[in-house]
């Protein structure tokens, strides 16, 4: 399926990603140096004498010029070494793995939940437009989109953790420890991320399906064949909507990074978002830099993946319309 045009697209986009990631790293480095305070001051606390601070700064290499420090970091980064945490003195890459796994699990669950609900709800709504379920789904998804996800997260905690005690309010149980415990600890954060996505997908999918069902000639052709309404909806309308949906999901993946930072904070999940916030607080610029780079790479890859899936799956693009 992957013809050479697709491969060329991948090559081109990966090449374009290099200056983007590089630019992001420079920008982050520069902005971090504008923030008052550094890791040495932060570690030693307000009681420390200027001499102590200066000594630690020298140990950490913080007294060197910005450009030198950046190039030093870059030299390591191109070899896959993102440096050593200023605070924990551990290689950053060692910590990134497990952190990414936690964030990845939450985001993955959120996608499963949101799509798993949005697709059947949209199909039912489009099957009987303007009827009960359609109206309810429209109201829910419209209001849902105007609620910030951290507000929704707090509501979830209040209801399901505090009131009903079905799920733990905070904390994380590793998968290796207990599968159900793991899922229970991730349920609320995943739902908090999934809900706005569900609203978004439902709105998109429902209106895309209804527009097709009412306006497209090929739907009329399908109906004129005498096939059933569900078959028209699934084989003809949904099939076409699915291509658009894939692109949207791919693009969402990058916007979700912001959501994980907030949600992981609320639920005390040891993901990469939490890692980033902690590092900012301790002025552990090496870790911050690493997190930001990882985010940038995920964003670029997610967008690439969305385009690629679209190109591979949609025959109109696959064969280049003429």
């Amino acid at each position, binding site marked *: 399926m992957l013809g050479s045009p697709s491969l060329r697209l991948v090559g081109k986009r990966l090449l374009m990603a290099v200056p983007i990631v590089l630019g992001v790293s420079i920008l982050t480095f520069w902005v971090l140096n504008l923030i008052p305070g550094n890791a040495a001051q932060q570690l030693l606390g307000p009681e420390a004498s200027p001499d102590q601070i200066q000594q630690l700064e020298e140990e950490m290499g913080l007294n060197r010029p910005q450009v030198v420090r950046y190039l030093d970091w870059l030299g390591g980064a191109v070899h896959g070494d993102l440096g050593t945490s200023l605070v924990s003195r551990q290689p950053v890459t060692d910590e990134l793995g497990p952190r990414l796994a936690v964030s990845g699990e939450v985001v993955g669950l959120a996608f499963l939940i949101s799509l798993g609900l949005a697709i059947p709800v949209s199909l039912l709504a489009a099957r009987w437009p303007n009827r009960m379920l359609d109206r309810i789904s429209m109201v829910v998804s419209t209001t849902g989109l105007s609620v910030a996800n951290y507000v929704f997260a707090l509501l979830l905690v209040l209801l399901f953790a505090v009131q009903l005690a079905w799920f733990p309010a905070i904390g994380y149980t590793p998968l290796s420890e207990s599968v159900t415990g793991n899922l229970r600890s991730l349920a609320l954060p995943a739902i908090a991320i999934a809900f706005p996505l569900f609203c978004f997908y439902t709105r998109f999918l429902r209106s895309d399906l209804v527009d097709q069902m009412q306006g497209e000639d090929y739907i009329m*052709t399908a109906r*004129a064949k005498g096939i059933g309404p569900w078959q028209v909806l699934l084989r003809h309308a949904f*099939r076409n909507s699915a291509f658009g949906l894939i692109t949207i999901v791919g693009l969402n993946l990058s916007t979700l990074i912001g959501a994980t930072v907030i949600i992981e904070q609320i639920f005390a999940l040891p993901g990469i978002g939490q890692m980033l916030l902690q590092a900012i607080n301790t002025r552990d610029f090496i870790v911050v830099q690493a997190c930001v780079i990882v985010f940038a790479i995920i964003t670029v890859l997610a967008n690439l993946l969305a385009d690629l899936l679209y190109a591979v799956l949609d025959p109109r693009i696959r064969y280049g319309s003429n």
Partner: protein
Amino acid sequence: MSDTLLQVEDLRVRFDQRGRRVYAVNGLSYRLRAGQMLAIVGESGSGKTVSSRALMGLLPPSATVTGSARIDGVELVGMPEPEMRRHRGADIAMIFQDPTRSLNPTMRIGAQITEAIRAHARVEKDAARARAMELLSLVRISDPQRRFYEYPHQLSGGMRQRVMIAIALASDPKLLIADEATTALDVTTQAQIMDLLGELRSRLGTAIILISHDLGLAASYADDVIVMYAGRAVEYAPTRTLFAKMRMPYTRALLDAIPRLERQSHARLPITPGQPPDLTALPPGCAFEPRCARATPQCRTSRPPFAQHEVGHWWACWNPCKDGEPV
């Protein structure tokens, strides 16, 4: 008569949209014999599409259909949807104006044809595939083996319309409605598709309703012609009779308009000077009266009945044209 395939009587279609009522079809009657080719002509908005979609139950929910339309004696008006579905494709099939938009762009040609085959018969995948190849050959698509696996955008407009015809013929319908099926095509392709339809009719015995605003096209291919205006039939005759003794001033106007139409037409423009009638408030008299050169005071106040005035020749006009007389 025994060989009547379709009997349409006093067919009416009304659309209700937010307090506004559009009377799109207002008492249409005609009869179609098995294997006959009937042309329905009329300018844009005269109700050609709506009246034929009413036969297949393919109108939006805002439409109310009354009157009667019987195919082989089976009443189609008011038929419940699940039952209607069994007739769609199997008894009546339809092809549309724009072959670019009427095929699903993300589905292979073959899948779109086999879907139609399997809609009405229990057919194994392989048998359906073989039948699809047969249909592709029937509509004279070369290299069906290859085309079967292609997508619509890989085909030319003419070929797409051939595929649409193959889909329509999948379940051997008794009636094929071709709604402006050649309007979007260039002149050469248009002629090829029309020839194909003519050939299929004589080979398979499929009756065809040819919907067009082009009286010239109707003249070259159809056995009979119905001229529609404001949702009603205004003249109806065998094609030869119609052209020899055109009675309705409106039909004359349509004929005179042919050279001006250019190809590529289907513009939403009135063919004769003046506005097409307002379908929300039809006049009590002849709907064509405001635009008619032959109109008399009577035309404004009372509607001329649609009646058989000469053998096989029906019209609705108070002051019909005499033989050879200019409008």
